[in-house]
């Protein structure tokens, strides 16, 4: 037994040493990994002082521009990082730029450090390998305030899995608005809208596709009219799906001659639409921001009697994101800025109607009581719908449909005059 014991103990000793060794290795590597992670954020912070981030973001809205300016000033104060807002008129230009850089093998030091993006453009970047490594967003400290588990929309962009390659920044929903002093009951479905347009010649229009909001409006009509909504979640195949689009073209064939300027000219985007509503050239406006009408009223751009509404069966809703191109010249500083943009303080200001009015992506359950209260106390604008009213949300079609809709619209209605 003793012998046995001795033998065992020898083995035991060996096993023990082995165990200690392996355990130590794991423990050490874990701790070092953890501390490296802890450190690396600090290292990033220190290293990035004095750096410049070129943030390519749509620049047509004064409120949003001012908000980005505020965030840039804050990050400059805190970390001495300069953020330059490159005001883009169409995000696809940015993707085109990065793509041409990749084609020319300019794999570092690209012109774009950070992009505001979603949907088609993200899918384009993903398909062409223009994004940073997977799952980087989870390493951003403030991502702990986002509830990725219970909120699948934060990791899903127009039906495309984000694979953690873009950080949610805000939530959007297609919202219509009208002047309540002239119109009592707005049309609340595509069918009602058609009747409205036919009986009010020249008083409705939408931004010219491929403008983002214009295309979204077409998608909205399609979703309401299509017989099988599930088709829209799969990849578009011409042979199989061409017929599915027919209800949209029929609708447009009827409606187009009765649009503003007889459908021969279209406003360039949703802000131009706002101007038209303000001057009463048209009756109904639309935006992909639930607070747009309230903001415009505050800024004297719309009369105070304007109110918002959505369609009975809901409207398109999606998340908009921030992402870093693979050849960004300043990945670390871009991450620091993203971390700030999803911090409670920045998200609170973003949701405030006095600044932007874009809903926060943070989960209330993950915030402490102090922040929770602050978020709950943000007043809503006079023309902003309640969460209850905005409950009906429609899912975005797969990006492959978007291009078909745009191209076909241009062929049928955008090039015939």
């Amino acid at each position, binding site marked *: 037994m003793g012998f046995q014991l001795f033998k065992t103990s020898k083995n035991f000793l060996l096993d023990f040493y082995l165990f200690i060794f392996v355990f130590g290795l794991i423990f050490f590597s874990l701790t070092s990994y953890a501390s490296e992670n802890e450190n690396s954020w600090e290292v990033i912070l220190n290293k990035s002082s004095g750096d410049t981030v070129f943030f*390519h973001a749509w*620049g*047509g809205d*004064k409120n949003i*521009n*001012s908000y980005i*300016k505020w965030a840039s000033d804050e990050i400059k104060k805190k970390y001495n990082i300069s953020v*330059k807002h*490159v*005001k883009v*008129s*169409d995000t*696809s*230009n940015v*993707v*085109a*730029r990065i*793509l*041409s850089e990749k*084609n*020319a*093998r*300019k794999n570092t*030091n690209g*012109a774009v450090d950070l992009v505001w993006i979603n949907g088609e*453009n993200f899918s*384009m970047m993903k398909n*062409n390998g223009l994004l940073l490594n997977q799952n980087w967003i989870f390493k951003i400290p403030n991502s702990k305030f986002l509830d990725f588990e219970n909120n699948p929309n934060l990791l899903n962009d127009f039906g495309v899995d984000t694979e953690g390659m873009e950080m949610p920044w805000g939530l959007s929903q297609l919202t219509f608005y009208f002047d309540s002093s002239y119109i009592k009951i707005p049309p609340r479905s595509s069918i009602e809208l058609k009747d409205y347009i036919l009986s009010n*010649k*020249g*008083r409705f229009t939408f931004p*010219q596709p491929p403008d983002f909001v214009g295309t979204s409006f077409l998608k909205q009509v399609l979703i309401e009219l299509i017989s099988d909504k599930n088709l829209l979640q799969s990849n578009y195949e011409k042979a199989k799906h061409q017929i599915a689009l027919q209800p949209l073209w029929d609708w447009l064939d009827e409606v187009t001659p009765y649009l*503003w*300027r*007889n459908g*021969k*000219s*279209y406003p*360039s*985007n949703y*802000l*131009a639409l*706002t*101007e*038209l509503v303000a*001057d*009463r*050239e048209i009756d109904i406006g639309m935006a992909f921001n639930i607070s747009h009408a309230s903001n415009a009223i505050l*800024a*004297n*751009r719309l*009369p105070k009697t304007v109110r918002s509404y959505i369609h009975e069966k809901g409207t398109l809703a999606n998340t908009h994101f921030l992402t870093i191109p693979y050849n960004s*010249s300043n990945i670390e500083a871009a991450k620091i800025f993203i971390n700030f943009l999803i911090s409670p303080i920045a998200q609170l200001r973003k949701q405030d109607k006095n600044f932007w009015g874009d809903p926060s992506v943070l989960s209330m359950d993950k915030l402490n009581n102090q922040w929770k209260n602050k978020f709950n106390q943000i007043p809503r604008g006079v023309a902003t719908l309640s969460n209850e009213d905005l409950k009906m949300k429609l899912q975005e079609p797969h990006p492959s449909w978007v291009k078909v809709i745009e191209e076909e619209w*241009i*062929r049928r*209605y*955008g*090039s*015939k*005059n």
Partner: protein
Amino acid sequence: MYSYLNKFLLVLLIAIIVTPIFFGILGFLLPSFGYFPILGKYEFSLNYFVISSNIPGVSKSIFLSFFTGFVSTLLALILSQVIILNTFETKLYKLIKKIIAPLLAMPHVTMAIGLVFIFTPSGLFFRIFSPWLTGFERPPNFFIIPDDYGFFLILGLVLKEIPFFILVSISAIEQFSAKKIFNVGKSLQHSVFSVWCFLLFPLIYRRIRLIVFIVIAFTASVVDMSLLLAPSTPSTLAIQILQKYQASETNSLFIASNLALIQLLVIIILILFWVLIEKIVSHKLFFTIFVNCLTFKNNLIKNLTFIIVSILFFLSLLVLISSFLWSLAGDWYFPNFLPKTLDIQNLVEFFNENKKIIFSSIVISLIVSLLACLFVILWVELTDGLKKKRQYIEWFIFLPLFIPQISFLIGIQSFLIPLNFSDFLVPLIFVELLYVIPYCFIILVPSLREISKDFLKVAASLGKNKFEILIFIKIPMIMPTFLLSIAIGMLVSFALYTPVYFIGAGRVTTLTVEALNLALSGSKQDLGVATFFQVIIPIIILLIVGWYNNNFLKWKF
């Protein structure tokens, strides 16, 4: 004596212009056939011509570019001559000479924005008459701007090109004894109109022919004005190119390049067409018909054209006024003729937010303009000894203006990206230089070459070398023109849109690009504010130069 150093420097100057042009052309010529090794494409085919011709509405776009380019150049040329002939040798002529520069200073974008302010159904024009006359409580659903055939684009271009034609015509007139010819013609009992048509215009035209071609090339490919004034379903060829270039598809650069080549062809055909018309007009038969028509309708034509010209001038003024009004407006909805509330908060806010852009716009334009003037002076010094050859090599200076901006810039861009420039300012200044040099050249060269050789001989005999003569004698003698040319150079640079858009790539931006951004997407108030700064800065620059020149002249005499 023509030294080797001179020759070397001259070749260097030519290279500065020709090298980027060579690469600019190559940069869209090769991809338009699908061949571009830098992007890893080696196939060589006519495939992209097929793709281009299948773009929806492309034939209408080509027609629009051709039509608007031709009509606007023709109208602007005719109207500019009408203005000069109706005012020649009067007080008004002197006035025009003075105010022409500020009119030139207005960027194309500003003019386009102003026309939109005035002529949309909710614009100023309808507000004047609504609702008391028209009964419109809300804007009518009229199809006015942009119209189907680009008439508003033509109007905008004509308004912008008339001052330019007047400026170059005046400087042409000063190159020969126009006054003598004018008086001789009149003393022979010819009407002012026929004296102009048959005696003076041929002499002027010969001198501005190059400019006419430049205007053709510009108007047929203009980007910024088309974005606002041209129809959009479909738009002009230039806009089709821009849209293709912006589309995020792998082969969109190749399609855009192909369209850029087509744009160049359109302009070449347009110029050939113009030359054909020149031939017809200068034919004897045309002359006799023209003279017979003229004899009795003379006064009618004169009055009619004068009315048109007054309207155009009034419009330009209205464009400025309405832009200023919008910049100060609080809420201003249809059909209010004037804003309900006025405040300068918009102006102050814009200035605070865009201080850096305003500053960089001014600095960039100053650098570009100074370099351009330096270039021109060097050029004149170096070509001094050349007589006949000079005329041929001077074509190089104007070459950049003949190639459609958008084609050239797409070409340049496809080389710039692989070159891995991390700096956007230097390429931008370099490219802007190509567009500014010709204008400085037009203004500076006549007076530089008119300096009497006697002064220079005296200076040389006193032992001054060429450099000293240039600095202490030539430049001081032409100081007013020199300053004017710096100012005009700045204005040209200040108003450039397409080069900044492409080469600046959003990293270097100027007020003109910002203004167009706002025009396409912002509120009218913001737009008014941007326009305000866009106009006020050139005017300030011109006022400074004017004031300095006045003082300088007083001191001189």
